[in-house]
């Protein structure tokens, strides 16, 4: 674990330095660009990446499914519908409310998933099926919204779905911070319980875990982490899938190590994906969601072929 941690810290340090030094300055003072454009962007990448990775890591244990991601609970569909609706309607909202609407949609969708699955009383597979259903419903509604949208707003919706870290100032970071704390603290405190979920509901119960209550608590933590991140940066995929699996390969499946490493790994991946998104077609930017999807597709294939450890 120590070696993995050292590598991650080194990658994070180099990534921060490279990110601070990358990009055009224009006619602005370098200090201003670093302080109000690049540094908040780095912080946003780190907080969103850690949130999405930990959310995926938690869900893979609680749902006992290696392919679970933050969006398994219908989070991206819910956020997409509310964001799409706001963009289509042209309502002008204060910026915090715009972020919050994505988060609210995400959390509403995951709540719907929870109720459709019989409030977690049954096998976790019920939650996965309910999540698939909510995702399909959300995708259908979003398609309808896109069909009804004029071209300019359609582009805006599609662009939102690709994720975005471009930021001026610290508003988005400040928005995400309470969700990060509210989700990360219970997740980190429950790593021993997450280990118990790996052995199934019955073994966990027999060792004193109130699986219904703990599953709900951990699902809320995962939904809050992912919902906050989606509200702040859009539905960026694959971080919650790639990072926990990679960390599991490097440091084993004990959640007391895996969860903190996934948080750091998520931050590092997002940081470097953001750097690539800025340099690949410089001076223009490639949406970070595109970079991560290009990574995520082959990684899914790897999961199918290699069947890595859960």
């Amino acid at each position, binding site marked *: 674990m120590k070696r993995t941690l050292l590598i991650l810290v080194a990658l994070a340090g180099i990534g921060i330095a490279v990110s601070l030094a990358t990009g055009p300055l224009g006619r602005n003072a370098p200090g201003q660009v670093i302080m109000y454009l690049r540094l908040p962007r780095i912080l946003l990448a780190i907080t969103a990446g850690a949130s999405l990775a930990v959310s995926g890591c938690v869900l893979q244990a609680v749902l006992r499914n290696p392919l679970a991601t933050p969006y398994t609970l219908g989070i991206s569909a819910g956020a997409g519908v509310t964001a799409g609706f706001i963009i289509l309607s042209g309502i002008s909202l204060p910026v915090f409310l715009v972020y919050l609407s994505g988060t609210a949609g995400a959390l509403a969708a995951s709540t719907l998933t929870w109720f459709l699955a019989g409030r977690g009383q049954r096998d976790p597979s019920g939650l996965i099926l309910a999540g698939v259903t909510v995702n399909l419903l959300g995708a259908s509604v979003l398609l309808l919204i896109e069909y009804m949208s004029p071209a300019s707003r359609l582009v805006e919706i599609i662009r939102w779905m690709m994720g975005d870290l471009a930021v001026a100032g610290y508003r988005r970071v400040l928005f995400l911070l309470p969700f990060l704390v509210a989700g990360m603290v219970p997740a980190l405190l429950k790593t*021993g319980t997450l280990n118990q979920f790996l052995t199934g509901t*019955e073994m966990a119960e027999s060792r*004193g875990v109130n699986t219904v209550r703990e599953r709900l608590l951990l699902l809320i933590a995962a939904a809050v982490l992912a919902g906050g991140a989606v509200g702040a940066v859009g539905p960026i995929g694959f971080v919650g899938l790639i990072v926990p699996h990679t960390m599991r390969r490097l440091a084993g499946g004990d959640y007391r190590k895996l969860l903190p490493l996934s948080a750091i790994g998520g931050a590092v991946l997002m940081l470097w994906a953001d750097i690539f998104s800025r340099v690949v077609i410089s001076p223009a930017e490639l949406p970070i969601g595109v970079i991560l999807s290009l990574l995520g597709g082959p990684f899914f294939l790897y999961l199918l072929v290699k069947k890595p450890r859960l």
Partner: protein
Amino acid sequence: MSELILKDYSAGYSPGGAAVSGVSMKIAGGSVTAVIGPNGSGKSTLLKGIMSFPGVYGSGSVTLDSMDIHRMNRNERAGKIAYLPQFPPIPAGLTAVETVLLGRFPHRSAWSGDSPEDVKIALDALEMVGATHLANKFTDEISGGENRLVNLAAVLSQRTEVILLDEPGASLDYGHAAQLWKLLSDLAAGGMIILATTHRIEMSGNAFDRVLLLSEGKSVAFGEPEDVFLSGDLLSSVYKTPMEVRRSSPEGSWIVFPGEAD
């Protein structure tokens, strides 16, 4: 010595819908009790009901040393009763010793590390089941039977007075099955209560002290193995096939001849 008592106990998967009902028995510490019966007779449900798993509804009473175990909080119960399901998921990404250490969970906080004492208990448990050589192997890289031993070690590391096991011998070869039942017998000799479901009477040697026979969700017989196995054509009628059960010697292993008329 501990005593587990079930009085008119029923369990099922919906309120009032019992999959197994009317079970009454008194099991003293220092004994191995086998729960036998055809598929669907309610063996696993009985164990799940005793454990109060979510989605399992029970009625009647289950007491351990006069304490109603369904009134105990989960942690208290986990300190007294351990359970091994029929097909526990393999906790992949963990080594065998890490998997065994999961059994120490009721004895420490949810996020604390493993103490040297926990590690010693886990290694001792692996040694007891003859799986020390697996300690540092990943559980998704060992066989089903080996995982069975590792999970049994995890249950032993919980250090409880009572162990409930659902088909503990499933997927074990002759050697490991004999070793398992000998181990359960030895644990019982130390004062523990062992309650195990099984389909393979002949794989267990002479490990049973008591037998509970279930049929179609009802308790048909409870008593010493001789009384249940050699009670006319009781087994034949329950399993709906001619069966003959003998002992290899007066104190020897039980041997089953299914499909043979007495």
